[in-house]
């Protein structure tokens, strides 16, 4: 089940909230959340429930043992055991096909590569559970004694299948004891509705334009004019942020409605001034996971320059690989490693000194080209797109009628998408609130509260209309 569907909003979320608020005790509410989360997860195929509950069991048991025993060696053994089991399962389900395809390419074995279906959310909950056990090992959190609460932590439908990768420490208190205020609930509704609209209206619309102008088929790419490819990739750049951050917005919003306070996962990454800055703003829960559980444990930057670069290389190799079992994702990760290494070497200092706008342009350009590597899993198509984007005057048309027409016909839509990618709305709201409070202007404050109250419902209604249109499939000919 995806958040941006009518089934989820009206047949799942609505009854979930209703039943949740009928219950009064936190324990009962937790049980309700757990049941709904398991139904939510099972919706994508109940067979994978076994994997989720099994991994949660291994992690719960390991963490409990780590908390109980005194021997540091044994604690480490439990940690290693848990990590090995979870990572092996992740490799089995996510990377077997990829590994065997490559082995087959060089050795001819095996004859047929098995087609293993990726269980939904496995990349996210595996990391959550590893972080939980590692945190218990480090003594940062207490081991949870109740298995079902560990299961609740990793299966919470808000974040189970698409992040953010929530640390146990973030929700430890919320699981045991939480209160929900009207401010909390309304902030949650606001956040959820913004996420829903970002996904249902903007991301899907940008996606359609990206599919048209940065098509996946090589044949279509070769006839696309240069500016068409740029336009397509810019739309994809918008789409991927709007899509991914929308899921985090909805997760944070739904969490807040029921009293959970998840950390931010995105912080307007496209206003970054450097690639390092970009990664502080993009998928924060993933980059902090790799920082805290891979980079720093390997020594981070404390073991000399060479080791620092080796550590960075490993982290970015893994970051790329985490995004998908394909070489282009690994290339994408290493591509960022190169820029981060350059910034560490000298580029960072240059960027600090020059006019800020150049930093923004540089970071955006690196991001857009990065998305080319991310989007095209087929290498020959990928190269064709890059060749096309940089072949000014090389026999390829610069633009065509379709491009002009699409730009003009989506000019307001694209403006809305751009506004939502940059913190313009947030700045205006914060500015009005600050001015209202400073000068006790009730009109200004009233305006903000009024907008806060109406916008979410309008956004939800517009999103519902857009979602209805998702199955819209006008057959021009040969019907009726």
């Amino acid at each position, binding site marked *: *089940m995806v958040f941006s*569907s*009518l*089934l989820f*909003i*009206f*047949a799942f979320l*609505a009854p979930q*909230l209703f039943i949740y608020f009928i219950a009064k005790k936190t324990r009962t509410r937790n049980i309700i959340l757990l049941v709904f989360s398991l139904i939510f997860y099972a*919706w*994508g*195929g*109940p067979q994978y429930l076994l994997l989720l509950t099994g991994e949660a069991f291994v992690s719960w048991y390991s963490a409990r043992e780590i908390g109980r025993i005194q021997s540091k060696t044994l604690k480490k053994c439990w940690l290693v055991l848990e990590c090995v089991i979870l990572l092996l399962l992740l490799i089995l389900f996510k990377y077997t096909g990829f590994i065997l395809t490559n082995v087959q390419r060089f050795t001819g074995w095996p004859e047929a590569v098995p087609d293993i*279906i990726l269980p939904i959310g496995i990349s996210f909950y595996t990391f959550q559970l590893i972080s939980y056990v590692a945190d218990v090992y480090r003594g940062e959190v207490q081991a949870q004694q109740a298995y079902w609460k560990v299961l609740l932590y990793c299966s919470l439908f808000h974040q189970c299948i698409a992040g953010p990768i929530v640390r146990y420490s973030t929700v430890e208190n919320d699981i045991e004891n939480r209160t929900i205020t*009207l*401010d909390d*609930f*309304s902030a949650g*509704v*606001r956040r959820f509705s913004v996420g829903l609209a970002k996904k249902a209206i903007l991301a899907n*619309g940008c996606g359609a334009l990206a599919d048209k102008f940065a098509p996946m088929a090589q044949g279509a790419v070769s006839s696309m004019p240069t500016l068409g490819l740029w336009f397509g990739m810019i739309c994809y750049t918008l789409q991927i942020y709007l899509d991914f951050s929308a899921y985090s917005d909805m997760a944070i919003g739904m969490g807040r409605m029921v009293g959970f306070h998840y950390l931010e996962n995105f912080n307007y990454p496209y206003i970054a001034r450097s690639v390092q800055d970009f990664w502080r703003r993009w998928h924060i829960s993933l980059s902090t996971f790799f920082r805290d559980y891979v980079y720093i444990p390997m020594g981070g930057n404390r073991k000399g320059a060479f080791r620092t670069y080796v550590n960075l290389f490993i982290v970015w190799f893994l970051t790329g690989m985490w995004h998908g079992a394909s070489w282009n994702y690994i290339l994408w990760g290493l591509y960022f490693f190169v820029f981060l290494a350059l910034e560490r070497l000298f580029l960072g200092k240059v960027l600090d000194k020059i006019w800020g706008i150049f930093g923004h342009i540089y970071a955006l350009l690196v991001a857009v080209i990065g998305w080319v590597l991310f989007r095209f899993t087929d290498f020959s198509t990928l190269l064709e797109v890059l060749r096309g984007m940089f072949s000014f005057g090389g026999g390829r048309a610069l633009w*065509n*009628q*379709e491009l*002009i*027409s699409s730009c*003009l*016909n*989506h*000019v*307001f*839509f694209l403006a809305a998408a751009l506004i939502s990618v940059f913190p313009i709305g947030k700045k205006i709201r914060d500015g009005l609130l600050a001015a209202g*409070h*400073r000068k*006790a202007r009730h009109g200004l*404050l*009233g305006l903000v*509260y*009024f907008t*806060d*109250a*109406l916008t*979410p*419902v309008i956004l*939800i*209604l*517009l999103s*519902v*209309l857009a*979602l*209805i249109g998702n*199955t*819209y499939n*006008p*057959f*021009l*000919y*040969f*019907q*009726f």
Partner: protein
Amino acid sequence: MNIENKMKDDNRRYGWRAFLLALFLIVMAMGFIVGCVLFWLRPTESVLEKRKLTEFPEFRVEEFVDGTYTSKISTWFADTFPFREELLTIQQKIKTYYGLQNDVVSAVGEGDDIPDIEDLIPPATEEPPEIQVPEESSPEIEVVPSESESESEPERETYESVDADELVKMNPQEAGDVNVKDLVGYCVYGFNLKGADKYAIHVSNVANALKGVSNTYEILIPDNSAIMLDDATKAEWRLSDEEKVLHYYQAKAASLSPYIKDVYIYDTLMEHNDEYLYFHTDHHWTQLGAYYAYVEFCKKKGIEPHELSEYKEVVTNDFLGSYYADYPQLADNPDTVHAYEPLTYNTMQFFDNDLKIMRDGVIVRDMNRFPNTLKYLGFIYGDNPLTIIDNPEVKNGETCIIIKESFGNAWIPFLTDHYQKIIVLDYRYYNSENESFMGNVVDLAKKEKAADVVFINNLEAISDSQIMDVMGNICK
């Protein structure tokens, strides 16, 4: 802010927050009731999209375990959401505010080169034409010897059976590229050589097989873009030159059979292109366009056409056709349907696909009560596999068999007054092996002793090579 002001502010904020809470609860509760309780309000088909909506899936254990079953429920839930059609109309309207202009260039033509027709030499009438097998289709084609060994009957080709329904579902938008200019939708036509050659083979096979039995006519209908657009725009959109294409179709068919009577309507449509020959919001021609084709047909056949003024005219406003589904801005330029009832007789029988029986129907209906997206269905009840008009007012003993897609629908009513019997086959749905039907075109024409067999089709609709394989099924 002092304490008093702060309290005031808190109260106001809480007031608005409570208001939001109430609105949110109302929306969620309404969504829940509409989506999960009022299941009888769920639509089963879409008038706007002209398709049947997803059905609730049947439970299967293996589909449940691997998640397919729940995924089908998700699709069903969204696809049949109550008031879907009304909500879609609003969404369509919203989309018109996405950009600055109403003109849309969604695609440019990418047609095949049109071969030189001088290379195509018509066969001598006395000798049977050589078999033409399109080389690219050779694996699909099974060449069978003709039933008769007689020298005067040329050999024919047949195609492997293609399931028309499957193809229609598989490839519904094959012909779907549309651009919009000044609130008129235009078909973006690209010539398809493979499709053209297959079409010529089917028509010539029928013409050759029916030599001495029936006359075989071919009417090819150009697209609205060819007739109504200015040359500059045609060039800008890189449309294939339909005049040249028509000559190719003509010459190709003539090279395969000397017995085809081609009714060339391009010139007459161009002469009248300041009139309302095609709809703005739909890919079809108007019945006025069809009338000029009827006049040309009569000339070729050597009969006197009726004047347009002789017919009873029924006018319907606010038609929003197939282009509207993709381009909601066309709602600002709705069409008017001028329909002309046959002079002598307005009743027909047709095979109802849902009921699987022959039913009575009206040839030209008053479309005022039709939903505004379905008004083209007023001509011969839309696209049915088999339609029969037995006109007791005409006693000339002549039968005409028509092979058509939807463009033919507006043209057929004019023929009613000239034949005692008209049998209409929609090649996309007519299955010559279906027991309820009447066999393939050749057998049917022989059995009915048909005076004429008419192929009337739109260039865009017959350009797809796979659809032409479907036509091949009945032109054996």
